[in-house]
């Protein structure tokens, strides 16, 4: 019997050992003097621009952070490209070496949520007195929340705005459209400016370029995909309206396809563009000759007949790993990276996006646009504010690019075909759903 008692004691000891081991008691033991905070960054620009400022902002952030937090060293792995970043992150997670803080590509957000890889930072957001979420543009901040909990903070973002060639507009005596302009006004202006100025019977001034179904669906208030990307509502009547509008818009250029439409060369009145692309253009010395011959301004996106002046917002966020052992430090780092004035203003110098912090963006944007004074700066600021507060996110689920190419194909089929739009919609809806469910 004494033997049995010993066995019981050993068993209970083993079970307790296993329990503490799985509860991660080794994580509770202080990791020595220095704390090593790992961060996950990618080397190249999120906006796909080769700007030569690899890791510039993270490096500055680390320098500042280490100065403010003695004893903590921050490190990251260099040389990971954006296209490999998600795979790299997945590998780190599987190896158990995931960084404490990492940039989250908007497309990966829902995947990381489903994996429970992201720490819910709602508590930090609510309790940290130094932090005020009101400083962010609403849409940018909202992107990082899921199911009423906050997981990410926006680091950098770029709204899609409607860029207008004011030279063309002024020539035709058209006033700059207001903030709440609509598809009808948009169509009227496009129709008015479309002209053959050289008399060769070929249109050489165009209404718009690159206004695609994405912009049209967003303007008409249709998100198309469910947030988890498993459902799609392509047969919706809002889509019908949007497709009809696109069809009308396309018909303006019907039979005039010889001359290419280049907004940057000055022969197109409107082009929707992400602010990041615009910055790339104006800052790139090779492209300086472009945009030279005309004045331009940016506007809100025109509202659809059943929607609002809704822009699309692309947001690069930053989040905390749910199994991080240094959550307090991780939060401090995230907070600094997203709210520090110096770091956030660096976005305007070393990157192409806008800061999600309202005050910083407005100040820096004024500075940036002041160099190229055109239009009324106040209007421009209202446009940015409106766009950033009401925008819908560009990405909502992992694998959205594949799903969108299916929609792209469907839209092209419908617009190039002669059939009834409603009928075609139902047919294509089924096809897209098939692709989404993984067939």
């Amino acid at each position, binding site marked *: 019997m004494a033997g049995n008692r010993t066995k019981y004691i050993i068993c209970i000891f083993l079970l307790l050992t296993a329990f503490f081991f799985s509860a991660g008691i080794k994580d509770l033991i202080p990791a020595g003097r220095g704390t090593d905070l790992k961060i996950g960054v990618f080397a190249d620009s999120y906006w796909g621009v080769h700007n030569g400022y690899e890791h510039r902002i993270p490096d500055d952030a680390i320098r500042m952070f280490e100065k403010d937090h003695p004893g903590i060293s921050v490190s990251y792995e260099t040389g990971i490209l954006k296209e490999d970043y998600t795979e790299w992150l997945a590998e780190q997670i599987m190896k158990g070496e995931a960084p404490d803080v990492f940039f989250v590509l908007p497309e990966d957000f829902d995947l990381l949520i489903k994996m*429970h890889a992201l720490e819910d930072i709602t508590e930090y957001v609510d309790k940290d007195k130094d932090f005020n979420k009101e400083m962010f543009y609403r849409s940018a901040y909202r992107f990082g929340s899921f199911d009423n909990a906050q997981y990410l903070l926006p680091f950098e973002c770029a709204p899609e705005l409607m860029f207008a060639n004011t030279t063309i507009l002024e020539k035709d005596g058209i006033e700059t459209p207001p903030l709440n302009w609509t598809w009808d006004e948009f169509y009227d202006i496009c129709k008015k400016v479309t002209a053959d100025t050289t008399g060769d019977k070929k249109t050489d001034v165009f209404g718009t370029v690159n206004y695609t179904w994405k912009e049209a669906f967003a303007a008409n208030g249709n998100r198309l995909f469910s947030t988890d990307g498993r459902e799609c509502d392509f047969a919706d009547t809002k889509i019908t309206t949007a497709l009809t509008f696109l069809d009308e818009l396309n018909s303006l250029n019907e039979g005039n396809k010889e001359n290419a439409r280049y907004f940057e060369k000055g022969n197109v009145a409107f082009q929707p563009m992400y602010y990041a692309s615009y910055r790339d253009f104006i800052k790139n010395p090779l492209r300086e000759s472009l945009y030279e011959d005309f004045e331009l301004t940016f506007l809100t996106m025109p509202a659809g007949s059943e929607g609002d002046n809704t822009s699309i917002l692309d947001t690069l966020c930053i989040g905390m790993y749910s199994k991080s052992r240094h959550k307090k430090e991780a939060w401090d780092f995230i907070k600094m990276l997203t709210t520090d004035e110096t770091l956030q203003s660096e976005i305007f110098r070393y990157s192409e996006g806008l800061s999600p912090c309202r005050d910083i963006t407005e100040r820096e944007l004024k500075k940036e646009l002041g160099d190229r004074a055109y239009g009324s700066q106040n209007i421009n600021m209202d446009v940015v504010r409106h766009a950033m507060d009401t925008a819908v996110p560009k990405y909502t689920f992992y694998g959205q690019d594949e799903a969108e190419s299916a929609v792209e194909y469907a839209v092209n089929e419908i617009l190039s075909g002669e059939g009834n739009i409603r009928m075609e919609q139902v047919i294509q809806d089924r096809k897209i759903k098939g692709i989404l469910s993984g067939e």
Partner: protein
Amino acid sequence: MNKERSDNIKTPVTGQSILMESMMHLNFWILAFVLFIVSRSTSGMIHERSALSFLTQTEAIPALPVNTIILISILYLCLILLLSITDEKGTNLVFKLCLETITVIWISELTGFSYTGMFLMVFADLMRNQMSRRDRTIAIIALGVFYLILDSSVLNFWLRRISIDDYLIYYSADYAGLIKGVLKIGSLLNTFLFILFMLYQIRKHMNENERIMMLNESLKEANIKLEEYSKSSALMAQTAERNRLAREIHDTIGHALTGIVTGLDACLMMFDKDRDLVKTQLGAIAEVARNGMTDVRQSVKALRPDALEKLPLDEAIEKLIDEMGRSTGVNIDYHCHDKLSDAFDETEEETIYRTIQESITNAISHGNASNINIEIKRSEDNMLTIEIKDNGSGSIDFEKGFGLTHMEERLNMLGGSLYIDGSDGFTVRAQMPIRWGAREN
């Protein structure tokens, strides 16, 4: 006989422990195989850049294989230790089975519910232990429910766990099929071992039953022999008693009567010749008769129970109770509210004594009583009540045997009565009038 019996018990136990050990080995290797596949595919996926597609599919962060291996090793060691504890009973057994179940659930959780065969070991452990039928049924149902829930992938629906199937996407379809096949074979072998174990268990039970039946048989034989022996010994005692009586009669009454008869014959012859001499002779004859009387009295005394002969009634009864209690281990409570000695004549004393003696004997031999309560008291109307109550099996339909009949006859002769009740234990209540004591009081 003894040797044969121990063989009967030992053989199945050895077979069972071999089977149990085989199951431990087999489960160890199956778990090792599962863990090997998990760690192999994890490192493979990391190296071959398919970690992302794996995570996209599982939508959960897998545990580090090293951690899983360490945890499962600890838990499996714990399980084996628990299984090696045998012959537990009651709460200890329940505690042990609970620990085993927890360990097994934990291990299968760690494998993402990919393998749950360890449950059969707990089942086997449950079956080989002694338990009441009700407890066993409850335990089997509880374990069965756990096993079903774990083995069907119901749990995986709510608790997203990464199972071996998820890891198999790393392998080509052929290899995945092979791995699944190996696992299937392992788990079938495990089931097969479990079935063998149960067969042994059934055989063991059957052997046990057979053995009990054999024991019953021999017990019955012994009982019959014992009965015969007790009959013959009673007969012998009777004969001895008769011989003794004959001897006593011969020695006392016979002797005296012979003297009296011879003396009286002489008297008859001398009656007419010398009356004075006859007178003297008759005096002598009377003396002989008186002596004979004394002898008879002494003989009768000699036939009485020893204790009564030597001790007063109170002490005799106490001695009887003490001896009976000590020799049989039965607890006998004796309460007497009056002094009994010198209150009764010999016949009455003997009746009281015999009544108590007979009742205790009956309670022990027929009722299997463990507790006997004896109470003697005197009632208002000068009746003595002796009540002997036991907690034995009692009997509602009983036939008065020799003992009880004799007891009743004796009491009736003294103007008393006997009351018997066998519904709650066995109660004997004897009543007899008190004659001398009445005067004393």
